[in-house]
C-alpha cells in the first residue's frame, strides 16, 4: 500500500470542524498534546512503515518543495 494522496475523507469539512473544535476549549499546551496523541494514534492505525515514512516526508517538505515527493503533485 502507498500513501493515499487523493481526497479520502468522507465529509471533509465536517472532519476539519471536529478537529479544530476538539481544541477550542484547551490551552495551547493541551492542544499540542492532543495533536501529538492524534499523530501517534493514527500512525498506529496505519502501521505500514513505508506509508508512515512517506507521510513524514510529505509533512517535512517545505511549501513549494512538494515536488520532491515522488508522485505528489499539488
Amino acid at each position, binding site marked *: 500500500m502507498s500513501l493515499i494522496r487523493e481526497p479520502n475523507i468522507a465529509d471533509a469539512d465536517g472532519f476539519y470542524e471536529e478537529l479544530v473544535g476538539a481544541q477550542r476549549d484547551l490551552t495551547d499546551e493541551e492542544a499540542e498534546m492532543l495533536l*501529538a496523541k492524534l499523530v*501517534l*494514534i493514527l500512525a498506529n492505525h496505519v502501521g505500514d512503515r513505508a506509508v508512515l515514512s512517506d507521510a513524514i516526508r510529505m509533512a517535512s517538505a517545505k511549501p513549494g518543495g512538494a515536488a520532491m515527493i515522488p508522485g505528489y503533485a499539488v
Partner: protein
Amino acid sequence: MLKTYTYPEFPYVRSPELGEGKVRRYPVVIIGAGPIGLSAALDCARRGIATVVLDDSNTVSVGSRAVCYAKRPLEIWDRLGVGERVAEQGVSWKVGKVFFRDDLVYSFDLLPEAEHKMPAMVNLQQYYLEQHLVEACAKTGLVDLRWKHRVINVVRAADHVVLTVDTPDGVFRMQADWLIACDGANSDTRRMLGAKFTGQFFQDQFLIADVVMKAAFPTERWFWFDPPFHRGQSVLLHKQCDNVWRIDFQLGANADAEEAKKPENVIPRIHAMLGKDIEFELEWVSVYQFACRRVDNFRYGRVLFAGDSAHQVSPFGARGANTGVQDVDNLAWKLALVLKGAAPEALLDSYHEERAFAADDNLLNSTRSTDFITPKSRVSRLLRDAVLELAADQPFARRLVNSGRLSTPTPYLHSSLNTADDAVFTGAMQPGTPCADAPVKVGKSRGWLLGHLGDGFVLLSFGKAPVEELRFGQVSARVLTVGTDIVDEAGILKQRYDGQPGTVYLIRPDQYVAARWRAFDADNIQAALRRCLAACTRSPA
C-alpha cells in the same frame, strides 16, 4: 560507604623481564583485566592459548559499573565455566513498572521464552563478575595476570607489537604476536595508535546511587519519567545482590554534579522517591556522562580492540559489558585458528566486519533509548509525553515507551563467513544467528544443547550422518547427532531449528550458525567450512 563488599587486593609480582635485559615474545597479550579482558583470557585458555594480561590496578572494578547481564553473555560465560556462578548469584527480575509524573502507567512481565538454560538477564555488581573471572583464569594455568602493570607505549611492527610497560619496579618492554586492547572507553591503546573514535556525546549528567535497603522491597525494575520527587527528569531503580539497589537519577545538562553527589542532597531525594519511612544506607554515589561512539576499525594489524575501547554506548539497555563479551566470543576462536596456522589472517578481518555491525546496531538501540529518556527539544518531549499518557490505557503506546531495550545478540546476517540457504527453513536459526539453546538428554542425564556444542566447529545433524567428522586442513567439524548423541525428548530442539530428518547445521566455534542444509553433502559442507575460515584456496592438507 561500600559496606557490603570488600575489595580483594591482588598481589603485585615483579615481572621476570625486569633486569633480564632481553625482550620476551608472547603469542597474545591483553591490556585490561576488566570483564572483557578477563573473558578474552579465559576464551584463549579454553583454546589452549597462553595469554599475558596487564592491568594498571590491583583489584576489581571499584564502585557502580555494569549491573545487568543478558542471556547471550551468560551463555558465553557458561561456555567459559563461570556462567552458572554468575546466574546463581545474580538477581533475576521479571516485572517492570513504568511511572509518569504521579502515576503508575503500566506494569509488564518480561515472560522470557521457557526452556533455555540461562535466564533472560540477571543483575550483579561488576566486581563480583570480575572476581569470578579472575578465579577462573587462575584455574586454567594459562593466564599470566600481572597487576600494577601499566602500558605506556604501543608500537606496531610488521608481525608483532612492542609494548612498554611501567611497574612499581621499573619499566620494561615486551613483544606480542597479537595484542587485544580491552582498556576501556578511554583506551590509551586507541589513542597511541591514532585510531578514530567518533560518535555522539551527550550533555546529560546522571547520578548513580547504590543503596542498601534494610527492609524487603519488591524485586522489580521501576522507571519514572518526570516524577514528583525529581521534576522534569527520569529515575531508574533496580536490584543487585546483597540487597543493594541501583538508583539512577538523570540530572540534566546544567546541574552541579559535585553538589548533587553530597549525601545531604542525595538522601532526601531517595526518601522522596521511596517514602520517608524506608531505611537505607548509601553504598556508593557517583556522577557520569556518556557518549555513543565506535572505533573506525576493530583491527589495526595485530592490535584488536574489544569492549568499550571499541565502542561506547549509553547505559540504557545494558549494552556495554554485554556487547563487549560478545566481541571476545567472536574474536577468540578466530585468533586461535590464525595462531595455529589453521586459518589465514584474513579471518580476523571478519572480526571487524561482524562486531562493527553489531556495535552499530547496539549504538542505534542505545541512542534511541537515550533520545526517548532525554528528549532534546520541546516537541520531542511533547511526543514522548504523549506516548506516556497514552500508554496508561492504550497497549499500542506501551510498545513505543523506550526506557532501554533488553540487550539481545545482533545476528551477523550479512557476514562473509555465512553460506546462504539453498532450501526453505522456518524459524529463527538462519546463517549468522547465535544458536538458540534447547533441553536435551544424554542417557538419563538432562543437559542443554549449548553445553554439547562446546567451542569447536560442530555439524548438528538431525538423523544419522555418514561420517563422524569432516576436515578442512587442520580444522575438523565434529558431528553431533540428534537422536543418538543427544536426545530431543521434548521436541524443542527440532522446533527451534526446523530440524526435519536429514537437516544438518554447520555451527561455528562461537556457537553461531554458519550454514545449513536439508541433506548431508560433504562437498557443500567443506565449501561452507572453507568460507567460514576465510580460506579462499583448496584444503592445504
